């Protein structure tokens, strides 16, 4: 596949790793192992799938960050969307990633088994088409994800408004990543030496919103693509910054990411959404300014206004260590329920649900080593 296969060539991988090893020699032993956070769950998946962590020396450790929207989806929000999905009038549409995420009384998949009309869609436009085809039903789209996904939701809502499709609404669980990074960088027991930044969030927001990581916290970061060579090249760029005592926001993924982001997408988002004061993240708690909600102009399309689901106060199971894994304080294998009671077919913690979750990645690719 063009623009994919070229970025998987093993001969270049070997060269980049050699270069990383040479560059690491210039970094004092006292600073090692370097702790590099890959913020995005897509990167976590690539790292495990291609065994990138195993190709690297012990002096680099990955910390798997919070950039997987399914992984940070709180139980309370799932309970609320399941309550809406169980309304017999509703066709509830979701991306496939979220259908197995566990709420208090099971997942959306379990709700479907109990008779709710829950459907997996590829695009929010598919949900909008369902609303047009079923004028006597209410179609609710589960809007989940970071800035990558927000423009598609915004464009779909604009179309719904323009065409007066009033049996369509949004359950909004969009969140924004930068306030969470700020939380992780606040003084604490967590030591991070640099960040691989999410390539596709950056394609929308550009590189400017990350400048605080360099300016306020003195940490290097590199906007990174999703193929194995992208990740290795970005790691080399990051290690070079550390060796040369620079801290900048660099862009490895120039074929997709422009410094100013995608203005058309940002304008659509501004037309539809506004910031919410705080949002709850599974495993991390409430984070100020990280939530997104529909603005006044689009209130009529807010599924929570339309259906008023009962507010849930469900908390994560006490035995789950998802929050500590998300912040790099422990590895999935340190959790007592990992691969015993918490498995992909019976996920207790959210990190076991999505293929982008660190626990699911460990389960699929590294389990034998820990048995």
């Amino acid at each position, binding site marked *: 596949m063009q623009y994919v296969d070229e970025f998987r060539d093993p001969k270049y991988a070997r060269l980049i790793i050699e270069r990383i090893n040479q560059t690491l020699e210039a970094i004092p032993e006292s600073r090692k192992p370097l702790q590099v956070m890959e913020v995005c*769950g897509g990167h976590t998946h690539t790292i495990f799938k291609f065994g990138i962590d195993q190709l690297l020396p012990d002096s680099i450790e990955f910390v798997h960050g919070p950039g997987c929207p399914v992984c940070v989806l709180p139980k309370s929000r799932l309970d609320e969307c399941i309550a809406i999905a169980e309304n017999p009038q509703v066709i509830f549409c979701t991306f496939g990633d979220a259908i197995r995420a566990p709420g208090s009384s099971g997942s959306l998949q379990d709700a479907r088994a109990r008779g709710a009309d829950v459907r997996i869609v590829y695009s929010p436009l598919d949900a909008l088409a369902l609303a047009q085809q079923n004028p006597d039903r209410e179609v609710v789209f589960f809007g989940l994800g970071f800035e990558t996904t927000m423009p*598609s939701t915004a464009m779909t809502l604009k179309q719904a408004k323009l065409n007066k499709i009033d049996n369509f609404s949004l359950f909004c669980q969009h969140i924004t990543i930068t306030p969470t990074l700020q939380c992780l960088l606040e003084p604490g027991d967590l030591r991070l030496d640099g960040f691989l930044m999410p390539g596709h969030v950056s394609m929308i927001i550009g590189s400017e919103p990350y400048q605080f990581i360099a300016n306020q916290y003195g940490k290097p970061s590199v906007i990174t693509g999703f193929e194995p060579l992208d990740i290795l090249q970005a790691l080399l760029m990051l290690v070079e910054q550390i060796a040369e005592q620079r801290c900048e926001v660099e862009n490895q993924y120039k*074929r*997709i990411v422009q410094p100013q982001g995608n203005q058309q997408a940002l304008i659509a988002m501004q037309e539809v959404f506004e910031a919410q004061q705080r949002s709850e993240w599974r495993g991390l708690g409430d984070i100020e300014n990280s939530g997104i909600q529909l603005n006044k102009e689009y209130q009529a399309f807010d599924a929570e206004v339309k259906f008023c689901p009962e507010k849930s106060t469900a908390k994560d199971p006490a035995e789950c260590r998802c929050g500590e894994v998300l912040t790099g304080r422990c590895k999935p294998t340190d959790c007592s329920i990992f691969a015993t009671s918490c498995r992909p077919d019976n996920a207790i913690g959210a990190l076991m649900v999505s293929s982008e979750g660190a626990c699911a990645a460990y389960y699929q690719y590294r389990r034998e080593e820990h048995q």
Partner: protein
Amino acid sequence: MCLGIPGQIIAISDAANMLATIDVCGVKRQVNVACVAIEPLDALVGKWALVHVGFAMSLLNEEEARQTLAALESMQALAHEVDDFTGLGHSDKEKA
């Protein structure tokens, strides 16, 4: 969740609704191009875009892609030179 796939825009199928036909590995699908729209819309035909949940979210900059690969090529050229310099044939090393 945030993954995307590169595809080539092959036709504008419904300009009023900002829909184009995109080819991803031989599979053709309608995608919305509102986020990458340019004037005239037909100028998108032939361009590569990153597709995410049914939307073209960014035009792929083919020149930048070539430059990234060229940087890797030059790393390889340097490795060959170093190997020649140290008397280690690169091909022998690959066999080893």
